[in-house]
């Protein structure tokens, strides 16, 4: 059985091979086939593909309302959260607000806290929000500190800025 590939093609066809080898199907055929393919395999439509202009406007309105409601809910919720955190981080007595330097559990669990007056460098209080400028960086701030029995500072109250 002769199944060999042609290796000794007839030279009579050389010119025809060269001439015909340059020819391709007209471009219009590919275009029509691709259009037929697109009809055969339409792009998968998502739910939002079906929305009209009015539908999009409605969807945008609903989304905006939802976003607004969400922001409002967060805004209303935030004070509570801050309140909780404030409960954990600060406490108020008749003389003013204490800033917690340790956890609320640790402070509450302390059996014998004591109050100590101290001058604290302003620079070290910058992290707590005390205004700091080059002019007052070297100053100190009068504070009352709640200290544990072992000397660990638990909370701080700024009584006067010197």
């Amino acid at each position, binding site marked *: 059985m002769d199944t060999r590939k042609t290796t000794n093609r*007839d030279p009579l066809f050389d010119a025809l091979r060269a001439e015909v080898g340059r020819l391709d199907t*007209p471009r219009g*055929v590919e275009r029509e086939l691709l259009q037929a393919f697109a009809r055969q*395999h339409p792009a998968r439509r998502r739910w939002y593909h079906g929305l009209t202009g009015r539908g999009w406007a409605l969807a945008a309105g609903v989304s905006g309302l939802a976003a607004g409601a969400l922001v409002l809910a967060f805004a209303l919720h935030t004070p509570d959260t801050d309140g909780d955190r404030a409960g954990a981080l600060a406490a108020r007595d008749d003389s003013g607000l204490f800033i917690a330097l340790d956890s609320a559990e640790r402070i509450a669990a302390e059996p014998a806290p004591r109050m100590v007056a101290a001058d604290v460098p302003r620079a070290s209080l910058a992290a707590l929000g005390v205004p700091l400028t080059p002019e007052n960086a070297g100053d100190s701030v009068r504070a009352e500190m709640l200290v544990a029995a072992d000397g660990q500072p638990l909370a701080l109250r700024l009584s006067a800025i010197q």
Partner: protein
Amino acid sequence: MTITTSDTELLRQMRSGGADAFAALYRRHQGPLYRFALLRCGSADTAADVVQETFMGLLTERFRFDPLRGQLQHFLFGVARNLILKNETAHQRHVVLSGPDDEDGDAGAEPPDDAACPLGRLLDNEAAEEVRRALALLAPHYRDAVILYEMHELSYAEIADVCQVDIGTVRSRLSRGRAALAKRLAGWRAMAGAA
């Protein structure tokens, strides 16, 4: 490094809706298919129609290719050949000619489109055009074998597969087709040699 995706993989992607895969298959195979159809039926318009119908059949799965049964290109040649035969059968009620080269008892030769009309010139090169015209006057079943062997480098077995005949028939058709071509081109060769 270019990695060529196999026809089978492109077909799988095409059936999953991959337009790019279909385009890649088309671009890979349209050229040989068009050239085969052009030489086989002798008309650029008919050849384009045949290519389009072949790929449309592949797309709609009217013609289902089985990778286990051979190469896609040979399958496409077979589909194109059948479409051309169908087209020729439709024209046979108008013109029935049996060429003198039809010696193996097959159906009579259906002249190509441009042979039924005045022989239209398809190619610029004179030698190429002479061979094309001589080829166009061969009986269709000889033309199939000669075109697939000489122009597309298919083996006897592959031609047998495309034409749905046995290898012995391919061999005899090829031999007779070449002899008929040589006879037809003898006069032109003598003139060309003298010139």
